[in-house]
């Protein structure tokens, strides 16, 4: 299986599963499941793209597509693709302990908003796992948006990936990682920055 990184209670990353070190080459850019069409509810004006849809076998990967999960198929934890609306889980999170959000390609940022909504709006507190095109240079952002588990894409250097979570010692804005905006803690942030320099 691919490497799974997680954040502990102190938000420190560790290797939760998989080989501690993987070798390999970069994989070809995956194709977006939805062809990048945008949300079906609002974007009814969008024509469906021509060409084949590439559907992932989610059950083989250990997840249930959200639509089926909402329909009652709860043997496996739910996975949200970019077009899925996380707010459909409102009121249904009772005993859910794992939700996966898929990044068909890392440059599609919808999953970041889905994560932020699950954390901030729905108050979801259990594991939120990024799957799909998950690579080192997006881990810091993903963690800030509320992800605490990361199923790395093949070919990622795990040691490098572990470093990603400390790319920045401070941040300006609040997101979904519990940090307050800088302007509410400027004094202590400056003290810490001076100490770090």
């Amino acid at each position, binding site marked *: 299986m691919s490497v799974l990184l997680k954040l502990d209670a102190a938000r420190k990353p560790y290797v939760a599963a998989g080989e501690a070190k993987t070798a390999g080459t970069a994989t070809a850019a995956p194709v977006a499941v939805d062809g990048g*069409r945008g949300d079906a509810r609002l974007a009814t004006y969008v024509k469906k793209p021509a060409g084949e849809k590439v559907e992932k076998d989610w059950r083989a990967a250990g997840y249930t597509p959200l639509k089926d999960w909402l329909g009652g198929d709860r043997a496996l934890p739910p996975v949200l693709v970019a077009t899925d609306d996380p707010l459909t889980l409102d009121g249904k999170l009772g005993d859910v302990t794992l939700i996966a959000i898929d990044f068909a390609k890392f440059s599609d940022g919808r999953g970041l908003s889905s994560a932020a909504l699950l954390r901030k709006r729905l108050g979801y507190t259990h594991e939120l796992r990024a799957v799909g095109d998950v690579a080192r240079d997006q881990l810091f952002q993903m963690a800030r948006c509320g992800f605490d588990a990361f199923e790395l894409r093949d070919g990622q250097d795990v040691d490098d990936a572990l470093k990603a979570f400390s790319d*920045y010692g401070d941040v300006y*804005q609040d997101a979904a990682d519990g940090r307050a905006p800088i*302007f509410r803690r400027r004094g202590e942030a400056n003290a810490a920055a001076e100490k770090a320099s």
Partner: protein
Amino acid sequence: MYRYDAVDQRIVNERVAQFRDQTARFLAGRLSEDEFKPLRLQNGLYIQRHAPMLRVAIPYGMLSSKQLRMLAHIAREYDRNYAHFTTRQNIQYNWPALDRVPDILADLATVEMHAIQTSGNCIRNVTTDHFAGVAADEIVDPRPYAEMMRQWSTLHPEFAYLPRKFKVAFNGAADDRAASAVHDLAFDVYKGADGEVLLRVKVGGGQGRTPRIAVTIKEDLPWRHMLTYTEAILRAYNRYGRRDNLYKARIKILVEALGAETFAEETESDFVHLIDGPATLTEEERTRVAACFIDPPYLSDAEAKADLAPLRAANRRFDAWLRRNVVAHKRAGYASVTLSLKRTGPAPGDATDAEIDAAADLADRFSFGEARVSHHQNLILADVARKDLFDLWQAADAAGLAQPNIGLATDIIACPGGDFCSLANAKSIPLSLAIQNELEARQEEIGELAIKISGCINACGHHHVGHIGVIGVDKHGEEWFQVLVGGRSDANVAIGEILGKAVKSEEIPALIARLVDLYLAERREGERFIDTAERLGVERFKLAAYPEKAAA
């Protein structure tokens, strides 16, 4: 201007280290071209026609003389002794070597500058009025709000991979010198009845293939909610904006498809969960940031004023410069001066290292050590005592920065075009030179005329909002141009109308001269080109542009 504290400096330093690491991994073959591309773009690094191009952020156009000298140093040390000021108040270098870009960023960080989010599908550099804080018609100084927005948007994790780029502008004056209505998101900053600062929120403006004027979705947002409301707008855009077609991915397409009302409802439905939350701005923060934008130690009006009439009478070039390049200041003893980067010859907005250093010296001598970049691609000295104007003019003239042409026909806005940009269909720079040559002799007679040239549909040269706009099109592999008339980017913003079929580059100067001839023949007392164009209507200009049609 804003000064970094320790945490601002830390974040920029860490960004340099992060990009140094990313560049090293790319050069070592551990990051693919596809993976590196969005990373380098979010740091302003394009791969262009000849070499990489690095765009450096100048937040809302403000520069210290120290920063100007660093920009000159970078042009000398890492580039070919010049740089290009852009239509978004930024500066770009056309010839840096990829492996030295981290060093450039490290140098920039020493003067509180960076290249964060100057490109890529993210929130770009925030822009505003280049006369902010000094304009006589200003209602609220927009710069503290622009700075708070800059900080919030810097490395925002949720909005790093939007459907497309996202440009934010602020305007706090009666007129609109920030072209706010052609931005993805714009705020008019004004005061409510009780004196509280309010924001009029406009979304969905833009140029490019589908020019649109931004629509107001919130008339009176209290300033404290600026960031939470923006978060709701961006979340709606991030979730619902199109990602299947590059040309339909900007927020203007989403706003138009949903309708402004539905988009506003969607925004509100998220905003109600964010309002009064942690991202609600505090008076303490506004006070801290606003303290960076207080007035410099001005002389009294009596000390600063001067009777310039004898000098004007004795020196016609000084007189012309005063009329064209000097505007009123909120204080009677002061004036704001534009240093023209529109010489006939160099590309509009280009400046050599020596010229940038000269501008820094002028800023130190005459304007409290500060300068601004305008989206018209000129430099501004905002706070010059009237008694110093003649000395400043002489020094600027010696440095080649005193062309008396601001707002005139040779003050052309142009993108870098096909000489540098890999997107362009056509070369804007030689054309702008040809137009300058055509109109220079009679530009005083013509008066205010904004000519704006883009090398392609992306409209970096703002051709949609030029009184006369020119856009390059590709026709069977040849460079052709279309001409528009009637655009404007001020408070009465309008999109220009295309006059007709594209013509070859060499025919454009004569075509524009015919438009000008029509204006001169028809203008009424006090009318500028744009006034006459609006009164006559575009049809008359179509006939002037294509006389063979009129004859037929």
